[in-house]
């Protein structure tokens, strides 16, 4: 016996995916295009989206920065015959963790309430930011519930 209550609940289903491509205008440093895709026009405010992408770009720039810390890391790694990699997390990995947390937080606060989900670009080889667009399937409870009832009564 179906529970109409369950099926009356709204559910979302994946409708489309938008892929934000990399911006290679400054070389191979990791940077994503901040251009607002048309598919999101009716789903999220432009400024929110651009803020997200710009923040991500800043994170990646920080990760790839060549400075004192990365140099010291390299020297330490050489000195220990790279055994240090077994216990220490590299700078890049640290920033990637921060990024993952940021994306999670953005999803929870901003994107999921609008029916969108951002996938961490690292899962796509840092080539694209994948944004999944969900649609409201609407409540399908009443129709299927009644049909099941009628089906069972028919038996």
């Amino acid at each position: 016996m179906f529970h109409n209550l369950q099926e009356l609940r709204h559910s979302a289903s994946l409708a489309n995916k938008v892929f934000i491509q990399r911006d290679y205008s400054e070389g191979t440093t990791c940077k994503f295009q901040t251009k607002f895709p048309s598919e999101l026009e009716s789903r999220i405010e432009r400024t929110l989206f651009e803020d997200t992408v710009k923040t991500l770009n800043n994170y990646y720039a920080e990760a790839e920065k060549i400075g004192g810390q990365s140099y010291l890391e390299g020297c330490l790694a050489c000195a220990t015959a790279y055994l240090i990699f077994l216990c220490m997390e590299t700078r890049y990995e640290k920033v990637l963790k921060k990024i993952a947390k940021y994306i999670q937080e953005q999803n929870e606060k901003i994107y999921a309430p609008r029916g969108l989900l951002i996938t961490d670009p690292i899962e796509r080889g840092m080539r694209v930011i994948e944004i999944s667009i969900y649609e409201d399937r609407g409540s399908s409870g009443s129709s299927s519930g009644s049909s099941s009832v009628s089906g069972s009564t028919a038996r």
Partner: protein
Amino acid sequence: MPGFSSGGVGGGVGATTFLVGATTLFFCFTCPWLSEHLSSVIPIYNAVIFLFTLANFCMATFMDPGIFPRAEEDEDKEDDFRAPLYKTVEIKGIQVRMKWCSTCRFYRPPRCSHCSVCDNCVEDFDHHCPWVNNCIGRRNYRYFFLFLLSLTTHIMNVFGFGLVYVLHHQKELDTPGAAVTMGVMCVAGLFFVPVAGLTGFHIVLVARGRTTNEQVTGKFRGGVNPFTNGCLRNITHVLCSSQAPRYIGRWRGRQTVEVQPPFLRPALTEAQLEAKVLDNGIQNDRHSTRSKSSLDQMESQSADAEAPPPPKPELRYPGLPRADTEESSLLTEAPPTPSMYKYRPTYNSPGRNHTALTHPNKSSRQPSYRSEPSSLDGTTVVGGGVGVRRGGGERGEGPGGPGGTAGGVLGGMSGYSLTGRSYTSYPSSLVLSTGGSHSSSLRSAHTAHNPLATLHSEGTTDTSYKSLANQTPRNGSLSYDSLLTPSESPEFESAAHELSPQNTPLQGYTSPFLSAQIAQQREGQLLQGSATFSSPHKAYLRAVSPPLPSSAGPPETHYLLQHNQDFSSRPPRNPSSSSSSPGARSLEPPVSPSTSRPVLANHTTSKPGGGVKKVTGVGGTTYEISV
């Protein structure tokens, strides 16, 4: 250098054995005497250098070079018909091509290349090193470089201290110690020459900010390297940057965020409200927003993203049930595509048929779509349907395989086979100029948008044909994608050799000027090549190829390439690639206006048939679409 490195898998094991074995002997026989008579620091110093060499060797061997994970199906939205083989991107003002990788299902980022030995796309691909039996890419280039440096140092140490030993034991050369030392010295001397040579080569590469791949394929010979930041910065980038992360084998945290309707929606802008008021309903509004805004996107954007075609959710996400709500119906119905857009694939069909049947003709087929057989890692062949591309990853399919079915499939598609005749040469020229934005540019042509704007969206032609790219191996130099490894599609190269007498080796990084010339050449080459197809569509092809008055030529090409500067048409040249030296990449002149004439051929070939609609496109060309 390339010949040296292509030793084979056994080379790695053999070399390692030599290295470890010789060094062990050195430590056992030579070092005790050295530490006694000279200094005890010597063995320690040698040991440190040797350990450093080993550590770098291990890192270079076992570390993931920066392999890209395969793209998921959803990422590849375009039907294979419409997807160009190349996308162009501008890096610091220089046009760079990104090639579609049919195995990995994405457009390769700049400097990425697909290694056929490892069957992976590798970021910042340098080369596949048989000595370490691993690709050298972004993540492990530093270790490889340090390995070379330390190995050179180590060999010099061993040779030098061995020499000191031998010179002090000149009277006792028959003792085991001296004999072994001499043997070790011989091995060291033997390996020193190639290793030092390779080390010097890589020092130059690092200083110039190039990869082995780019150097050997002569990418920057005539042009500027967009990836260099100056000698010092290049060196620090190699040696001092943070270890790049790996993309594969990562632990994926579970997505804990749930998406639950109802969803927030942004407030509609004024323009959207107006559109809503004027339109009949939600459906139209959505459709127009999708197509027009994607057009705008193409027009304004000069980079690589393509406007996605109207999505067909029922194909993508088969789990989506067909509920009867209004919103669901929006999703389940594919929005009607403009007929021009729909019929674009037909352009390819004559070629596809032929490619299946006549192997050598592949190379001069045009324009290169992702689905082109053998142009993509020797993978799948023709086929009419969407499903064909899914088979792209398989390498087993040869050109002759599905050839029999190709004709049937194509014939079965309503309207496809008939539409080939008159309009296709026009879209080809559009495609040449606009590359990645081709689909929307055609859409814009159909809807009489300003086509010049869409043409401008791509800086240069990028529907370069794999034939051009792969012509270079004929000279003994390697194409960008097949450096030091078996070529992705060796048969393609030979095919190119047969049919394309005059084309230039293609540089990925060219000035807009050069690419304009190449666009011209490709146009001409395409139509010359297409004339040799033997097929039912021969009549069509013949109609296309006869030359038109030359006055029509330059304005047309000028129009197509109007965003490139310094365009000038020069008399055609027929250099055979074999005559040019390996790796020579001089600027080749463009083809003459005569070869661009076929662009206008569709004027002459319009033959209205039953149920054929004539559409006027850009530049006064007309084409027919069967309805």
